[in-house]
């Protein structure tokens, strides 16, 4: 009896709400609420206690009133100390340059795959995705062995006689670019491919019939049509790369850190949770616009798959 009633409830409007409510509840509890906590702590003062920050609302000494302590000091500290501004600027520069290199390498590859024969296309796609399934950390680590002074790259260059002194490659900006491009390249290629694959090739034929040279046809037809793919690929690389932590830690300079590392150092080494939270909020606000643009693209892409 009760079981039948339960089934009835689950089948109706209530059931619908329960089904919607389950993922909603999870994401609210473990994605939205944590951000609110970070936001809150970014206004606290650091304190030697556990947890090491002052509460925002405190009873006054006489115990009669609540007092709100809303402290902008952490944000002021970030602006006043040129170290943080330089770190933000450096992170954005590294992410932007890496994104452009990814685009320059990924576009021709995506194009080649999209125009390949159908049978080879799936194989090529699998080859692009396969490294993604193997550990990201280990793939970054592989470059340590390749780039160090007695590493493979230097040994090869010495052996063929292009250089007579080993180049300093590891722990430089160059190494960080290599690491980011290497790790994120599939994220550039896949959205580009899914865009390029959908193009109507008769447009190119028409252009050729009308006397357009292949390069002109590419610049006037293929490139404009592929802009949504370019935007999606660039955002998929750029946004996570700004906050990248592992790659600069393993391959990058020690005199210029990226913002992800600074956040983590503030938190773990300095135990300054409020400043770490403020860094996270500033980073998040800076990335909000790209994240929203990416979400619009992503949702449109899924809707477009509907037949």
């Amino acid at each position, binding site marked *: 009896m009760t079981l039948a009633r339960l*089934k009835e409830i*689950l*089948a109706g409007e209530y059931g619908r709400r329960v*089904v*919607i409510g389950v*993922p909603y509840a*999870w*994401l609210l509890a473990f*994605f939205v609420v*944590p*951000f609110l*906590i970070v936001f809150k702590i970014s206004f606290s003062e650091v304190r030697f206690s556990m*947890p090491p920050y002052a509460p925002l609302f405190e009873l006054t000494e006489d115990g009669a009133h609540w007092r709100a302590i809303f402290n902008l000091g952490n944000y002021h500290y970030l602006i006043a100390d040129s170290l943080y501004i330089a770190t933000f600027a450096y992170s954005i520069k590294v992410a932007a340059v890496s994104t452009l290199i990814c685009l320059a*390498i*990924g576009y*021709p*590859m995506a*194009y*080649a*795959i999209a125009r*390949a024969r159908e049978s080879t296309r799936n194989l*090529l796609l*699998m*080859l*692009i995705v*396969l*490294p993604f*399934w*193997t*550990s990201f*950390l*280990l*793939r970054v*680590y*592989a470059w340590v*062995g390749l780039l*160090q002074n007695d590493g*493979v790259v230097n040994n090869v260059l010495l052996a063929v006689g292009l250089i007579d002194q080993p180049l300093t490659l590891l722990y430089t900006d160059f190494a960080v670019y290599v690491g980011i491009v*290497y790790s994120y*390249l599939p994220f550039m290629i896949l959205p580009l491919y899914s865009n390029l694959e959908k193009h109507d090739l008769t447009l190119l034929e028409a252009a050729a019939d009308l006397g357009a040279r292949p390069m002109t046809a590419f610049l006037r037809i293929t490139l404009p049509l592929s802009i949504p793919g370019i935007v999606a690929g660039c*955002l998929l690389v750029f*946004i996570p790369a700004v*906050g990248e932590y*592992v790659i600069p*830690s*393993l391959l990058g300079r020690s005199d210029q850190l990226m913002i*992800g590392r600074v*956040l*983590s150092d503030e*938190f773990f080494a300095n135990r300054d949770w409020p400043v770490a*939270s403020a860094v*996270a909020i500033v980073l998040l606000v800076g990335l909000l616009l790209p*994240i929203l643009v*990416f*979400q619009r693209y*992503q949702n449109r892409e*899924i809707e477009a*798959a*509907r*037949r």
Partner: protein
Amino acid sequence: MMSRGRFRKTALVVGLSFLYLPILSMIVFSFNNSRLVTVWDAAHSPTLKWYSALLSNGHILDAAWLSIRIAAVTATLSVVLGTVAGLVLARFGPFRGRALLAGLTTAPLVMPEVITGLSMLLLFVALEHAIGWPDGRGFVTITIAHVTFCLSYVTVVVQSRLAGFDDSLEEAALDLGARPARVFFSITLPLILPAIISGWLLAFTLSWDDVVISQFVAGPSASTLPMVIFSKVRLGVSPDVNALASIMVAVVALCVVCSTLWMRRLERRRQLEEQMARAAGG
């Protein structure tokens, strides 16, 4: 000028070499005798000594076992939650809060890991302070954090798969009087099974691979395999990590090939059944 076919082939060959040569070099040097990872000791190589060193390293094996358990639980929970979320977004039509749910499921895809890690840790600390749970950090907190970012990937995969099918079969079953739950288990679920399998594998891999978020939420007692590797390789190259990488590449390659073949078979059988059903329905 290069012909267009040549240009495309060059782009692919150069790009794929870039992707695969580093992995290849790791595998080659895992058989190298010398401690200096990058100098090939031709007299005593190839050797399996780094592999045997690895397999007798209890610390690494413990960490690997913890990572496997976390990844398996994460993948399973993510698949359940992600499938529900994907179903809701693809099939439930408009409802209040739909845009927010869509936003919440895509945001973790690009969110920098340090932000996710920090926010999850602060949540756990605040919870522990307020209600005494979670009591210490380890398996449970790492798993919750992993599920939160992995479920987004499953949602996207399931949602795209569902968007590729019209809902006429589901409508028909509902018209014939089947309850929504029955429709889900006998029609929708078999349709999206390939997406669920790839979603599970994806979530497993992402969890297995994660180092940044784990480092934030792990607490002092629990170390996952990526955390152990990261602390090792921060100090420079070490040959047993090369051996570990080679084993992982071999396992992954095997899994990917098998699952691709298996999913192709599933897909073919489903298409056949659908054709037969449509033929029988006239």
